[in-house]
């Protein structure tokens, strides 16, 4: 892995400035009031964050996955919730760029990359999570249309998004019977559940998306019938690296807060940082984050170069980084004592936000399943 380029330094500086100005003063309030800042997301869009690794033809920034890791780390160091939503949006934007035809890309990508039109990724269902190949939502062909019926669960941005990338069943062939379609907001029969009450990620809406005889043209299908599962999994490879980078950023913020606090807090006749067991704790946290950063960069490079072990490296990086991010944030809360438990100090929000990263984009148990199966297959 190579050192950062001057351009990457400039990007990190810009994202850090943006996050400090546009996010930092508001994160606590957005969390408390469950406010989804679509205006700030549109501002992020003007800076190129709506299609980070989407081609430049339709408004994307044409950057690499390694660049994306740096960008998501910086955003999440200020607000993991907003960073994670931008990560999901980028996953959808990339899937349309990678698997859409030229008409679809020209029609959908300009608004998506500008983030004036937000997106949602719809895979999970009320009864189908980790076993994605078992999804039940149906699309039935009717002339030049599909008629969609079913419900999607835990959908980020639902109700606000302009576009829903939905995995539907077009044939009873397990994972080979799944198809990806794009449903625009406002289509008759499309409705949303209540905004879920959640532990973290409160500044982005999570709702059920309900499809009742939703009719969309066949031309809204990405790729061919039966391609959906492959498209969903390819999107998730990048999604896993990005969400790992969000955990890294949140964890780094927690570590930095802890170091500052231990240096300042006096107890037993000196600053707490003089206690060697606390210093060792800082060392452990820092090491776990650096291991995560290394794994994420390696996975990002694999995505960029199309390496044969991409799936494994993305799963490993997601597992390592999201476990590390949560552990570091939780430990940082402990190091802050009672103050860590107060919202004002920002630690408890990091813990709440980072907890879900161990569950979504494929739970960490599924990451172990992927890694384990690949390891066994190799022998």
């Amino acid at each position: 892995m190579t050192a950062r380029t001057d351009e990457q330094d400039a990007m990190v500086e810009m994202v850090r400035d943006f996050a400090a100005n546009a996010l930092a003063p508001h994160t606590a309030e957005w969390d408390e009031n469950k406010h989804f800042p679509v205006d700030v997301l549109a501002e992020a869009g003007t800076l190129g964050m709506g299609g980070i690794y989407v081609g430049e033809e339709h408004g994307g920034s044409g950057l690499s996955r390694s660049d994306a890791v740096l960008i998501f780390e910086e955003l999440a160091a200020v607000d993991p919730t907003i960073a994670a939503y931008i990560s999901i949006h980028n996953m959808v934007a990339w899937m349309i760029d990678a698997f859409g035809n030229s008409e679809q890309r020209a029609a959908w990508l300009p608004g998506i990359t500008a983030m004036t039109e937000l997106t949602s990724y719809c895979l999970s269902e009320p009864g189908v999570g980790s076993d994605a190949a078992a999804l039940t939502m149906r699309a039935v062909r009717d002339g030049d249309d599909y008629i969609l019926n079913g419900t999607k669960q835990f959908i980020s941005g639902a109700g606000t998004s302009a576009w829903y990338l939905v995995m539907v069943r077009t044939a009873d062939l397990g994972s080979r019977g799944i198809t990806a379609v794009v449903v625009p907001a406002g289509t008759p029969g499309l409705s949303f559940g209540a905004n879920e009450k959640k532990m973290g990620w409160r500044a982005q809406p999570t709702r059920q998306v309900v499809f009742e005889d939703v009719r969309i043209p066949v031309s809204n299908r990405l790729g061919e019938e039966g391609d959906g599962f492959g498209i969903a999994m390819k999107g998730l490879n990048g999604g896993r690296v990005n969400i790992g980078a969000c955990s890294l950023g949140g964890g780094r913020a927690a570590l930095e807060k802890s170091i500052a606090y231990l240096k300042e807090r006096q107890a037993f006749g000196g600053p707490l940082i003089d206690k060697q067991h606390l210093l060792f704790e800082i060392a452990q946290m820092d090491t776990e984050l650096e291991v995560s950063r290394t794994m994420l960069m390696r996975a990002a490079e694999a995505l960029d170069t199309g390496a044969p072990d991409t799936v494994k490296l993305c799963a490993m990086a997601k597992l390592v980084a999201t476990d590390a991010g949560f552990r570091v944030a939780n430990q940082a809360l402990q190091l802050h004592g009672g103050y860590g438990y107060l919202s004002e100090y920002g630690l408890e929000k990091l813990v709440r936000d980072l907890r879900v990263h161990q569950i979504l984009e494929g739970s960490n148990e599924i990451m172990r399943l992927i890694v384990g199966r690949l390891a066994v297959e190799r022998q």
Partner: protein
Amino acid sequence: MKIAVLIKQVPDTAEERTLVPATGWLDRAAADSLVDEINERALETALQVKDADKSTEVVVLAMGPEEAAKAIRKALSMGADSGIHVLDGGLAGADARRTAAVLAAALRGVNADVVLAGNESTDGRGGVVPAMVAEHLGLPLVGGLNSVELGGGTVCGERSSDTGSLNVSAPLPAVVTVTERSAEARFPNFKGILTAKRKPVTTLSLAELELPATPARAVVLAHSERPPREAGRKITDDGTAGTQLAGFLIENRLV
């Protein structure tokens, strides 16, 4: 329209800023260097003209050591078209007078309709360089504007004074400076960052500007650290505290 924007690289105000004891020069290693925020506002003013009229050309000009190239690159990533970097070891420790003469010499080759600058830098805070540049070039100085309108061969804008505000204008070409109340600078976007390295930057030495390597006339003889803050005056209310407080505010022109 062609707009030249003066850019100065200064130490980050969020960090410790110190002088080198022996020379009285800025200790560049002590803090990260960045484009002075007030210059970014001047650049923003220029870029807004360019947003409205794509034929506008924005040139940024900086005088400084090697590292100032980074400041020029930042300005290019925000949207400026090209840069000029006056780089010469003989300029280390240049005073305001010398700096203005060098900048003016560099500007003579630019033929800009407008020279935009910040009203004063956050490090030196002399606030005299733009006026001196205007004098060298024989141009009017329209200084300290809170808002700037450029077009139709004139510059106009609003300037604050102690007692009110003035609407001022001048025919172009002119030197214009902006205050912290002018438009907040944009962030560079990713595309701007990637294209910045492909934009032209001309490096000029004193010889190329046909200027002699004369030493600065103003030098720092001595300097001392800012004394630690002392506790303020406490007023105990004996019935006249209100009057005393009002007196303090009036005396220090705080109201």
